[in-house]
């Protein structure tokens, strides 16, 4: 067999070069490098692809620059709802959660769904109970709060109230 491979993403969209300062770009690159290294460290030691993608995504979820985990955006109601999924190419087993808030790393809960239940996708209170059963770490609203995400919500809501046209496809990105 040949060697390992790993690829990660931290989202896509209208990333205006005019608004990208050298400091911001350096921070994004650092965040990506940290996540890639977290996943590659697993593969370098002979670990599994599943462990590697979990490690990489956890690092991205811990970095507020990216829209997941600690950097999750807000709904129109001012709440945060997170979705996550894992899939294992060996047997097409999969686990997912949707609309949850609490676990610091939703991707770990998605994996718990795959490994601890006969189901694929869980939502609601039972998903959070599973997170507790699996011993996953929880965060509160202060842990997940991010000023720039909150400000983005206010700006978007103001645009809607004023009827301002918005054809930026990036606003529809997850």
């Amino acid at each position: 067999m040949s060697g390992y491979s790993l690829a990660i993403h931290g989202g896509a969209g209208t990333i205006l070069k005019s608004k990208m300062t050298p400091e911001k770009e350096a921070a994004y690159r650092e965040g990506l490098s940290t996540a890639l290294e977290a996943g590659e460290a697993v593969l370098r030691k002979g670990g599994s692809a599943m462990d590697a993608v979990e490690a990489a995504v956890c690092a991205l979820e811990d970095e507020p620059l990216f829209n997941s985990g600690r950097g999750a955006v807000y709904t129109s109601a001012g709440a945060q709802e997170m979705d996550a999924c894992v899939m294992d190419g060996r047997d097409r087993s999969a686990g997912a959660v949707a609309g949850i808030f609490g676990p610091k790393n939703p991707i770990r809960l998605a994996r718990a769904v795959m490994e601890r239940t006969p189901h694929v996708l869980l939502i609601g209170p039972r998903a959070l109970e599973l997170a507790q059963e699996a011993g996953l770490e929880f965060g509160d609203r202060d842990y997940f709060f991010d000023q720039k995400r909150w400000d983005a919500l206010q700006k978007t809501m103001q645009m809607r109230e004023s009827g301002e046209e918005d054809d930026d496809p990036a606003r529809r990105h997850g």
Partner: protein
Amino acid sequence: TVGAVARDRDGNLAAATSTGGMTAKMPGRIGDTPIPGAGTFADNATCAVSATGHGEVFIRYTAGAEIAARMRHLGETLEQAARHVVMEDLAPNDGSGGLVAVDSEGNITLPFNCEGMYRSSVREGSDPETAIYAE
């Protein structure tokens, strides 16, 4: 949205994707991320995929599974299949975004049809590559 795909030394593939959704979304709205075959997909025989973008469109076109289907039934390479889905299926149908994917041989592709995608990749024995815009 964030995500990762990997091939380990045993040739096994895996994918993982996580998201907060989109700013000011309707409460309860779910995109493609937690839907296997749409935003997340893995099958050792073909590829592993993690997507980011306009989730509703990625769901309608079952983006991840479609790439695997093109590889399996048309004999396309990962690069051909992923590029077709991102540029020919999603882009003309309001499906802005991109994805990262790896095949059973460890080949990596990272296509996107918007201005940029935060991305990074590495293959054993090579230096990591990180990029934001089309480069």
